């Protein structure tokens, strides 16, 4: 008896219960995705159990390998939580890839200036620049969606490509940021004062994942415990009721998209100052889209973003080991990622919406008839 009571309390605790309940469907989808991936691995002539074992070992086998997971998780956490806010508000912010480029180029630009300041100041300045620039970058699509009703999905995707080519332009000679005489266009190395500290020697573990997890928790708390979060949840669940409750719908949508942009910019800045140390074209290579997938897998729940970001990064980090030990190509992990998301949306999302509609329809018919006379 006490067990059921505890379970009830747990379910009723703000946030956690929703997470546990909404977690069931994504988990089922992920399971199906892993199964389908196992099928593909078997097709390529490798025992899937061996492959997954190698993958797991590659991700969690040693502190070094786990640090690799955390490094890869950083942009997924930061970008993912930004996209998640969009999902919670009811808008599809697919622009994370572009925001990462925008943030990276701004952080890189500030980072490579040799400033006579302590590292902490230099780093903060670079982050500030990244957030500012990616925010401005996101403003166009956000404004168009909020105030002009232009489909945000297409504009954010288009702006991703604009961002990629903008970065490519900025790191090419004769632009001042470009590394002179390099074979491949890239920016100069950032100044030592702008480099983030490494947390574990012998690895490239930078503090990005800590900030990422902190951001997820922060946004979870914001959604749960602030009026801003309340407005967001109301708007995402029922725009009409939100309007009636006095919410400025347009402004709220603008903010949601801008948060996605700024967080994407932070993600890009971490990649530059913690890992790559310079900016070049294609350095993101789809991570922004993966961050959107992470947010989707989490159903927009910031705490769920932590779980799904770690899952994705573990897959990718373990992929190399899997490839070496069993000969299954590392790109298999990308395929598994995509399959997981596809199964999650095919199993969970559509079905839930359909049930909601059926439920609503039944009620509407009922009301119409009872009103008759």
């Amino acid at each position, binding site marked *: 008896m006490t067990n059921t009571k505890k379970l009830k309390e747990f379910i009723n605790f703000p946030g956690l219960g929703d997470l546990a309940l909404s977690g069931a469907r994504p988990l089922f989808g992920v399971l199906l995705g892993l199964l389908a991936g196992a099928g593909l691995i078997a097709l390529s002539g490798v025992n899937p159990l061996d492959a997954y074992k190698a993958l797991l070992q590659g991700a969690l086998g040693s502190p070094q390998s786990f640090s690799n997971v955390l490094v890869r998780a950083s942009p997924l956490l930061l970008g993912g939580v930004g996209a998640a806010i969009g999902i919670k508000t009811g808008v599809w912010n697919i622009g994370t890839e572009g925001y990462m480029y925008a943030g990276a180029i701004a952080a890189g630009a500030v980072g490579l200036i040799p400033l006579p300041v302590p590292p902490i100041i230099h780093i903060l300045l670079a982050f500030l620049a990244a957030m500012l620039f990616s925010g401005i970058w996101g403003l166009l699509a956000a404004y168009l969606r909020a105030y002009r009703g232009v489909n945000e999905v297409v504009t954010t995707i288009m702006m991703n490509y604009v961002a990629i080519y903008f970065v490519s332009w900025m790191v090419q000679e004769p632009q001042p940021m470009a590394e002179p005489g390099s074979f491949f266009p890239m920016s100069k190395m950032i100044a030592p004062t702008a480099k983030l500290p490494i947390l574990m020697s012998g690895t490239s573990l930078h503090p990005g994942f800590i900030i990422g997890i902190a951001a997820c928790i922060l946004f979870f708390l914001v959604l749960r415990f602030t009026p801003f979060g309340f407005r967001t949840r109301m708007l995402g669940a029922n725009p009409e009721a939100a309007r009636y409750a006095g919410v400025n719908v347009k402004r709220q949508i603008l903010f949601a998209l801008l948060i996605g942009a700024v967080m994407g910019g932070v993600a890009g800045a971490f990649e530059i100052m913690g890992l790559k140390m310079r900016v070049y074209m294609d350095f993101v290579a789809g991570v922004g889209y993966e961050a959107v997938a992470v947010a989707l897998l989490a159903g927009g729940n910031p705490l769920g973003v932590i779980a799904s970001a770690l899952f994705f990064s573990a897959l990718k980090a373990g992929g190399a080991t899997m490839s070496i030990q069993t000969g299954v190509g590392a790109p298999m992990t990308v395929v598994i990622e995509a399959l997981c998301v596809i199964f999650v949306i095919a199993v969970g*999302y559509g079905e839930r919406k359909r049930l909601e509609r059926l439920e609503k329809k039944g009620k509407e018919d009922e009301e119409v008839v009872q009103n008759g006379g």
Partner: protein
Amino acid sequence: MEADQIISWLQATLRWGGPLILVSIGEVFSERSGVINVGIEGIMLFGALTGVAISYFTGSVVWAVLVTILLGILLGSGFAYLTVSRRTNQVVTGLMVNLAALGGTNLLFALLPATRSERVTTFPVLFPESFHSIPVIGPVLFKQPVNTWIALILPFIAAWVLYRTTWGLNVRAVGDNPQAAATAGLRVVRLKYQAVILSGIFAALGGCALTLGEVGYFASGGMTAGRGFVVLAAVVVGGWDPVKIALACLVFGAADAAQLRMQTVGSDIPYQIFQMLPYLITVAALAGLVGRTKPPKTWGAPYDPADI
């Protein structure tokens, strides 16, 4: 610019614009039926690899095309099942198809080591050598492989199908008001499937044209380099009209050709401006700055047959 430079630029415009047009032919029907197939980038990638692989193994472009079409049907059906029957979010589904394709083609490509370096049989040039020496149009038009010619003719056929056939009318009706279409006795879900599968076929063929049209090899990873998204852009800019879309594809192809040329030759104008152009024009078009372009009314929205 020298005359021969202009000629080679025009030639490259058609070479790069052609595959875009091919892909757009299918996408316009899909979008007219209300389904945005964002997965065309990924399907192109698969098509590009399949074309090269089959051509390598059989030495026949006919087989390559046939298998590519089969692949397009398969992937198109899968996309239709997810977005039409399961009513998943079209954009997210498309992005995942692209992700899976990026990984999948990398995997498959690794299994075919022989195609990495060798050139395979490519699409033939339709006109004999004697035509190639005709000034300007010789090198620009007659030297083009057969797929370019098909790409130049197809938009007109597509427009004919869309505006002059019963099926085209049905597709237009379904994308604008599926409930009304269903009331008129049309089978909405089936029509959407057909349109989406068509987009799969042409995306695969477009990818195939990318590899077998000229270069004859597959470059792992960035083979399509966002060209699927350029097509999405062209469809918006072309106002969902096959011929106008083809023109947009040619303009974008010209920008592509120009930037490729500038990358090799070097230029004062940054070539990236030309790379950004298609996307910027699209955002402007959607914002209502360039002309007035109105998407089909149920563009991107799922259709629930239970709604009357």
